[in-house]
C-alpha cells in the first residue's frame, strides 16, 4: 500500500533541500475526533489530495476468539456483545444461532419473533448512532443529539426487556430467557409511532441540504462489483446497487415471515449509503410493527440441556447485522467449551474498502468515508 517516497524522506529536515516536493504523511488517529474510536489511518497526501492510505488497527484488540476457547458456550455469550457494542443484540443473535445450529435445535416461534423485534430495534439504534456521528463528522452537530435522544427511548425498551442498555446479553442459546415485559407491545408500537416523524426530521435537516448533498454525492464511490470483490456487505453493498440482504437471501429467525423491502442505491456513493440506511430504518420500523402484531404465544426457550455439549463438528452461521454480514464459525470438539470460534466481523472487512474509496479524494472525504462505512472499532479489532 505504501510506495517509497519519491525523492527523500519527508522527515529528513536536516538536509536543507529546497523545493523538495515529497508527500505529506499525515497520521489520522488513533486519537482523532472522527476516526470513530481508535482507528489510525496513515494518509499520504499531496496537498489535500489523498494518494494512499494505510489503516493501522488493533488498538482495541482483546482477543475475543482466544477468550472463547476458554469459556463454555453459555459463558461466551456476553462477550460477543462487546464486539460491535452499538449493535450488541445482533451479535448475540448471530452467536446464539450458530450454537443452536451446532446443537441442531431451533428457538421456538415466540422467541424468534422476540429476537426479530429486538434485533430490528437494535438496527435502528445502530443506524442512529451512525447517522449522528456521520453527520457530526461532516460538521452538522445537531443530528447527533437528535438521534441519540431518540435512541435513548429504544435503549429504555432494551433496559426494560433484558436489564441492560448497551451490552444487552438479551438472548440465550436455545431462545430467549426474558419474556416480554408487561406493556412491551405498547412501548414498542409507541416507539415506532414516535420514531417515524423523527426520521422525517433527520431527513428535513439533511437530505435536501445542499451542503450535505455536496459533501456526500460522488464521495467514496464504489461499484457493486468492487464491493463483492472486497467482501463489503451490508448497506454499503446495497447502496452500490446489489440487492442482497441475508434476511431475504437466507432467512433466519423467521425473517421469511416478515414483509419488508431491501432498499438499494444506484451510485454507490456516500449519499446513496445515507439514503439506504435511512430507508432501512423505515423498513426496520415496519418489521418491528409486524413482529409486535404477530407475536405468537408459546414457550420462549427450546429444550436445551443445562450444560451445553454440542456434538463435534463445525458450522458457519451468519446474519445480517446493521453493518453487514456477521458470521460465526464455530468448531466444537464435543466438550463444553468451543474448540474455536471465529467471528467474521463486517466492520473489519468493510474497512478494507477504505483505501479504494478515498484514493484521489480529499482529506475531508476520508472523514466522510470512514463515517459512511459505519465501522465500530470494537468489532474491527475484536
Amino acid at each position, binding site marked *: 500500500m505504501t510506495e517509497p517516497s519519491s525523492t527523500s524522506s519527508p522527515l529528513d529536515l536536516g538536509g536543507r533541500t529546497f523545493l523538495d516536493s515529497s508527500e505529506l504523511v499525515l497520521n489520522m488517529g488513533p486519537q482523532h475526533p472522527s476516526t470513530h474510536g481508535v482507528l489510525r489511518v496513515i494518509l499520504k497526501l499531496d496537498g489535500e489530495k489523498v494518494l494512499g492510505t494505510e489503516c493501522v488497527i488493533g488498538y482495541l484488540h482483546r482477543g475475543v476468539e482466544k477468550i472463547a476457547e476458554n469459556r463454555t458456550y453459555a459463558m461466551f455469550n*456476553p462477550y460477543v456483545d462487546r464486539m460491535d457494542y452499538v449493535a450488541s443484540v445482533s451479535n448475540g443473535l448471530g452467536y446464539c444461532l450458530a450454537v443452536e445450529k451446532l446443537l441442531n435445535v431451533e428457538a421456538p416461534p415466540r422467541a424468534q419473533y422476540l429476537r426479530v423485534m429486538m434485533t430490528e430495534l437494535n438496527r435502528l439504534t445502530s443506524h442512529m448512532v451512525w447517522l449522528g456521528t456521520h453527520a457530526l463528522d461532516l460538521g452538522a452537530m*445537531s443530528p447527533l443529539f437528535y438521534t441519540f435522544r431518540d435512541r435513548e427511548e429504544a435503549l429504555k425498551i432494551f*433496559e426494560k426487556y433484558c*436489564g*441492560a442498555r448497551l451490552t444487552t446479553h438479551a438472548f440465550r442459546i436455545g431462545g430467549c430467557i426474558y419474556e416480554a415485559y408487561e406493556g412491551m407491545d405498547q412501548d414498542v408500537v409507541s416507539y415506532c409511532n414516535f420514531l417515524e416523524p423523527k426520521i422525517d426530521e433527520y431527513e*428535513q*435537516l439533511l437530505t435536501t*441540504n445542499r451542503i450535505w448533498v455536496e459533501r456526500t454525492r460522488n464521495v467514496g464511490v464504489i461499484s457493486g462489483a468492487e464491493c463483492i470483490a472486497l467482501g463489503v456487505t451490508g448497506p454499503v453493498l446495497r447502496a452500490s446497487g446489489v440487492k442482497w440482504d441475508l434476511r431475504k437471501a437466507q432467512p433466519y429467525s423467521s425473517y421469511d415471515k416478515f414483509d419488508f423491502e431491501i432498499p438499494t442505491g444506484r451510485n454507490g456513493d456516500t449519499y446513496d449509503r445515507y439514503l439506504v440506511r435511512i430507508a432501512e430504518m423505515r423498513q426496520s420500523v415496519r418489521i418491528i410493527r409486524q413482529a409486535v402484531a404477530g407475536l405468537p404465544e408459546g414457550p420462549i426457550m427450546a429444550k436445551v440441556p443445562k450444560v451445553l455439549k454440542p456434538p463435534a463438528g463445525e458450522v458457519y452461521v451468519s446474519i445480517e447485522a446493521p453493518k453487514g454480514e456477521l458470521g460465526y464459525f464455530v468448531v466444537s470438539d464435543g466438550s463444553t467449551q468451543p474448540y474455536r470460534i471465529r467471528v467474521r466481523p463486517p466492520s473489519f472487512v468493510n474497512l478494507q474498502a477504505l483505501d479504494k474509496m478515498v484514493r484521489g479524494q480529499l482529506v475531508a472525504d476520508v472523514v466522510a468515508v470512514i463515517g459512511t462505512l459505519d465501522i465500530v472499532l470494537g468489532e474491527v479489532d475484536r
Partner: protein
Amino acid sequence: MSLAPLLRKMFFVDLIKGMAVTFHYQDPKEIYTEQYPLERPEIAGRYRGLPRLNVNPETQETLCIACDLCALACPERLIVIRSERNAASKRKELTTWTVDASRCMFCGLCEEACPTDCLELSQDFEFATYRRDFVFGRERLERGPEPTVYRK
C-alpha cells in the same frame, strides 16, 4: 434544471427547512437532559446492576446455600464463595461471598444459575468510590444499594 428546483435553490429553501427544525427545538420543553444527581433516572425492574444477596426477611438469615453454582457460571470467575460444614446441622453454611465489581460485566449468568432466590442483580448502578476496593463482600451486598441522596 427546471424552474422549481432552481427557485428553491435560489431562495435557500433547503437550508431554511433545516433551520426550521433547529429553531423549533429551542422550546425549553424539548430539552431532554436529565440533571442526574438531582433527577434520578428511572431504572427498569430487570436492570442488571450490582449483585445483591437476599436474606430471609423474617429470620434475617441468608438464603444462600453455598452451592457454588454462581461462581461456576461466572464467565469472569470473579465470585468467590467460602463455606464451612456446620457440625451440628450437617449443612454447608456460607462464610464469605465476594464479587469483584471492577471486573463484573453484569451479564446476569450468576443470577440465572442461582437455585434459590438469594442472588439477584439489583438496580444499584452507583458504586463509584474514591478507593480501589471493588471486591464487595457479603455485608455490602446484603445491605443493598445506598446511593447518595441529593435533595431537590
